[in-house]
C-alpha cells in the first residue's frame, strides 16, 4: 500500500508506468493538461499557487482514503507549482488496484475532492503576456 505525493516546479515530466503490486490488474493514469483557452480567451499557460504543506497533507490524506475506502493499492499524485505552458501536464494521478471498477471510481472521487478542498489555485497568463 503506497501513497506518494509530490509538488513539482513547472510542468510535469513525462513518466513511465510505475511498478505496481503483483496482484494489481488495473492502473488508471489521469493527466491534466493546460488548455489553449481559459474562459474562451487564449492563454500562454497557467500559473499555479500552492499552499504548502497543507496541500501536500490533504493530498496524502485523500490518497490514504483511496486505500482504506476503495481498496486500491497504489496512489501517486503529482501537481505543478508555478508556470505551466499550454499543452503541458500540470497534474497526474496514478491509481492501481486489483480491478478496474475500484480504480476508476477511486480516481474520479480523488479528483472531485482535489477540486473542492486542496489549496491550489490556477491563474491564467494571457497569450500576449506569457513567457511560453
Amino acid at each position, binding site marked *: 500500500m503506497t501513497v506518494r505525493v509530490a509538488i513539482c516546479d513547472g510542468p510535469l515530466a513525462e513518466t513511465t508506468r510505475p511498478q505496481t503490486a503483483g496482484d494489481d490488474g488495473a492502473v488508471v493514469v489521469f493527466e491534466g493538461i493546460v488548455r489553449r483557452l481559459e474562459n474562451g480567451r487564449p492563454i500562454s499557460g497557467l500559473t499555479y*499557487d*500552492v499552499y504548502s504543506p*497543507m496541500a501536500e497533507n490533504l493530498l496524502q490524506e485523500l490518497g490514504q482514503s483511496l486505500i482504506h475506502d476503495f481498496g486500491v493499492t497504489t496512489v501517486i499524485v503529482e*501537481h505543478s507549482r508555478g508556470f505551466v505552458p499550454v499543452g503541458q501536464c500540470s497534474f497526474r494521478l496514478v491509481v492501481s488496484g486489483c480491478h478496474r471498477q475500484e480504480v476508476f471510481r477511486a480516481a474520479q472521487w480523488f*479528483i472531485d475532492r482535489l477540486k473542492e478542498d486542496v489549496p*491550489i489555485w*490556477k491563474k491564467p497568463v494571457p497569450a500576449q503576456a506569457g513567457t511560453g
Partner: protein
Amino acid sequence: MEQVDQRQQKTCESLRVFLFGAEATLLGTSEIFVPAEEGIRTVRDLRSWLAGRYTELRPLMSQIRVAVNHRFAADDTPLGPNDEIALIGKVSGG
C-alpha cells in the same frame, strides 16, 4: 503580491493571515496582520472582523474557509499569535 496593506501594522502579538487566489487579488496582498487590540479570539471572530474591515471580501465570505496550522478549522477554533492562519477561498487545482 508586492502591495503591502498599509491599514495594518505588524506587532509580535498580531495575528498573521495568509491570502491566496481571488482574495489575495482583491486585497492586493498575500498577507494581512490583525492587531492584538482587535480582540480576535476565534475563527468566528476573525471572519466577522474580516467582513467588517474588508468590504471587498464580503461577497466571498460564504465560500471562504479558514485554515489554522494547515487544517480547516471550525468557527469555534481558538486563535493565537503563534498560529498559522490562512483564508482558503475557491480552489482550482487539477
